[in-house]
């Protein structure tokens, strides 16, 4: 009964080619679907069991036509893992670069509008004061220029805090945290973790045999790529296609369960819980990430140090001074504070030193001995009064002592090396102003042995170099990721030509099978008419 078996074989072939065409159709439909992996029908010859022995007829009988062995999903696990690693790195660099770019924007002093120019103006005013120590114009000008300098430093400090605040919140306010970039990212990551757990669950109930659940795997890989953008992960795949995802040693998702969800709180709230005095004893970040298990139990209290890769890793470490030579908003803020403190100290010390004299406001043709309260720069202390301790770029101001009516005369321009030469009429003595002017090139121990302006320029240089090298690193990393994406696209993307060839191939096979069917059918007819 070979004719009937031929009929069966060609009917099977029709069915197989029909299915193959449906896979081509699936491929073509999804050629632009993100994360879609091309599928291919693997055909296999059907063998009919039975002893063959020495009878060639048995050989023919063993031929059962064609069947679908499996539908293969184009994939490359090694490339996927490598891609996720590089993607994490790219996103981390992107956050760092974003931070440095904004920093560079804040300190873009090329047009002569920055702190550097303010410092130059300050020294120029001192020069003028040194030439006309008794002139109210020179004194007023000096004060105005000092005010510009301090308010510019205040402004830069505010911009820096804002930059940090946008990234991580201000460290104490819940609202600021909720409006920060890190908060958005942390929520997106948690969503992705939940999605992954759901897909894992689906895979566990779907991929129960040896064949793969191709479309679920596509979904799974896409979510894994999403997660890798936020944190650095390693992936462990089970036979059923579900995965365990780790960051460091910490499992984030295990099968259908999210075992390491992120939680976030302000530094202040963290400190309050742990008995740390905020902000004095807190050297960490403004926001603290923790890892909690699915039931709300805390697994890692402060996960900031273990989250180093991806956008979250880049962001959380983008604004804190770790004293490791890496430039970011935190280190720049620290440098600027140091600069402000140093400027205040230099000029306060000189203005209040022994044998220095200011002008008597009640008789401006006479000198008056200065005293320790006669400061130029100050800040408001916690009690709302002026103090010289704890001066930072954020709070530095020209002292009320100078700003008050007649305060201009409190600038000590005169100095007598030898007190015996003191003459109350010597209002033209500008020795102290000369010393103040001389600090322009003086190396300051508390500014790493640099002069005030050099310290600032060196800070500027650090920002510029850090920004430049971050840009280069990021660009290189983008190239790597682009090239990997291209490789991945090439490895498992749909190629229209390929699909069209397949389509024609299966169509032809279908038509041929139909032809065989017809032929066999007419053979059967012939057979039926035999002997009539």
């Amino acid at each position, binding site marked *: 009964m070979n004719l009937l078996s031929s009929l069966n074989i060609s009917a099977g072939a029709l069915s197989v080619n029909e299915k193959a065409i449906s896979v081509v159709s699936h491929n073509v439909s999804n050629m632009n679907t993100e994360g879609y992996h091309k599928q291919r029908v693997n055909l296999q010859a059907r063998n009919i069991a039975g002893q063959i022995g020495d009878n060639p007829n048995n050989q023919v009988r063993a031929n059962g036509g064609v069947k679908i062995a499996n539908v293969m999903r184009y994939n490359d696990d090694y490339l996927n893992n490598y891609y996720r690693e590089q993607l994490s790195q790219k996103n981390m660099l992107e956050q760092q670069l974003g931070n440095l770019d904004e920093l560079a924007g804040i300190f873009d002093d090329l047009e002569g509008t920055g702190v550097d120019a303010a410092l130059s103006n300050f020294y*120029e005013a001192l*020069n003028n004061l040194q*030439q006309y120590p*008794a002139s109210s114009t020179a004194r007023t000008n000096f004060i105005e220029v000092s005010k510009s300098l301090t308010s510019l430093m205040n402004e830069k400090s505010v911009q820096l805090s804002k930059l940090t605040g946008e990234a991580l919140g201000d460290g104490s306010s819940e609202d600021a945290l909720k409006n920060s970039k890190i908060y958005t990212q942390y929520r997106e990551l948690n969503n992705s973790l939940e999605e992954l757990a759901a897909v894992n669950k689906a895979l566990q109930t779907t991929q129960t045999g040896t064949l793969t659940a191709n479309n679920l795997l596509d979904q799974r890989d896409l979510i894994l790529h999403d997660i890798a953008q936020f944190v650095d992960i390693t992936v462990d795949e089970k036979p059923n296609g579900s995965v365990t995802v780790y960051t460091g040693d910490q499992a984030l998702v295990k099968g259908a369960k999210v075992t390491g969800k992120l939680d976030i709180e302000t530094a202040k709230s963290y400190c309050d819980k742990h008995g740390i005095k905020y902000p004095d004893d807190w050297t960490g970040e403004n926001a603290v990430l923790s890892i909690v298990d699915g039931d709300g139990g805390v697994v890692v209290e402060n996960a900031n140090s273990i989250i180093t890769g991806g956008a979250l890793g880049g962001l959380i470490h983008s604004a804190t001074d770790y004293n490791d030579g890496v430039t970011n908003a935190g280190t720049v803020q620290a440098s600027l504070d140091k600069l402000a403190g140093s400027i205040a100290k230099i000029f306060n010390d000189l203005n209040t030193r022994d044998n220095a004299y200011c002008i008597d406001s009640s008789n401006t043709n006479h000198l008056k001995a200065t005293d320790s309260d006669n400061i130029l720069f100050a800040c408001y202390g916690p009690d709302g009064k002026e103090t010289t301790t704890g001066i930072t770029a954020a709070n530095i101001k020209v002292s009320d002592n100078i700003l008050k009516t007649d305060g201009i005369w409190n600038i000590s321009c005169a100095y007598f090396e030898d007190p015996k030469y003191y003459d109350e009429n010597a209002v033209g003595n500008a020795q102290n102003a000369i010393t103040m002017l001389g600090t322009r090139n003086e190396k300051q121990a508390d500014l790493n042995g640099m002069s005030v302006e050099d310290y600032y320029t060196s800070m500027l240089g650090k*920002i*510029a170099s850090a920004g430049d090298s971050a840009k280069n690193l990021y660009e290189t990393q983008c190239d790597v990721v*682009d090239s990997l994406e291209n490789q991945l696209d090439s490895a498992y993307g749909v190629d229209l*030509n390929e699909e069209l060839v397949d389509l024609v191939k299966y169509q032809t096979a279908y038509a041929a099978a139909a032809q065989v069917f017809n032929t066999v059918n007419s053979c059967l007819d012939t057979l039926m008419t035999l002997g009539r």
Partner: protein
Amino acid sequence: MYSNRISTTARYNLLTADIQRNEANYNRLTAQLASGKKITNITDDPIGAVNIVNTNRQLGQISTFNQNTQLAKEELDTFDDLMQLAEGYLTQAWDKAVQANNGTYASTSLKALKVEIDEIAKTMVDLANTEFNDNFIFGGANTKLTPYEIDTNGNILYHGTPQDNPDYVRKTEVADGVFEVINTTGDKLFGYYDSYYSDSTGTKYYPQTDEATGNTIYVDKSGNQYTGDVADLTAKEDYSGVMGALKLLSNSLQEVIDAKNAGDSNAETAGYAKMFSTLDMFSNAHNEMVTEQTKFGGVYNRLEMTESTLETNTENLTSYLSSLQDVDIASAASKWMQAQYSYQASLQVAAASMNMSLLNYL
């Protein structure tokens, strides 16, 4: 098995990436050309950016030094003019002293000479009280206090910083850390004349007429009246320079006139001897003035040299700054053209190849 495989999506992505890269490059060069600046952000070129900031600062400093130099030169110009005038008056006074000393003048002529000498003294005091930019030039560090005063007793007193006080100086910065002293003291140039009574402690007392009693009382600078025995006071006379010489000459003329009127030949001889001694004083004062004038002439020359150095530095730094931040238009324009061609080419290629597939031939 995938080595030669390329997917349709990958091909589209590649085309898009190429177009974007060319577009970005084209935009960057366009922005450079439009702004004329090579560095628009400090991260574009960290070293260049730091150099620009440093150079701008140096240029600012140089401009300050330049202003200082200009101002110092103006003050020294004034100083020089004043010195020439002073030397003229001094020479006039000297001529009068020589005339008075020849001994042939009658008392009326001597009186006329004395009036002239006193006028010259007043003029000299006015000159020594000259202000420049609201500062008394010859007061040392006492810039707001009139340096010379002729008091009721005819003393020519100096209130400026004395020349032996090293804190008399006014300086101006003409280069980094280099200060030029641009003043001298009045007493060094013009001297002074101070006649007073001294007690055993050395306190100076000046005679005054008590308005109530009409008696002569002795009062110190702070207004305290001398309470001791008047016999213990010693008359003293301190003087130096041209002011001293003028006052002495005027005093000796008065003494000679008085002696002539009284017919006291001894007093007349003593008067003439005093008068004669002023000739040397005038000569010394003249030398002192010329010396100072020469000294500040030297400072002036140095300032001029500084000025030309500053000018050269400014030119060098300005051209350096331009090389740091300004775009070389020719090369930027040619790069821009190239970028434009590449951009166009990538667009054309993409447009032509995007819809290529087997689909077109089935």
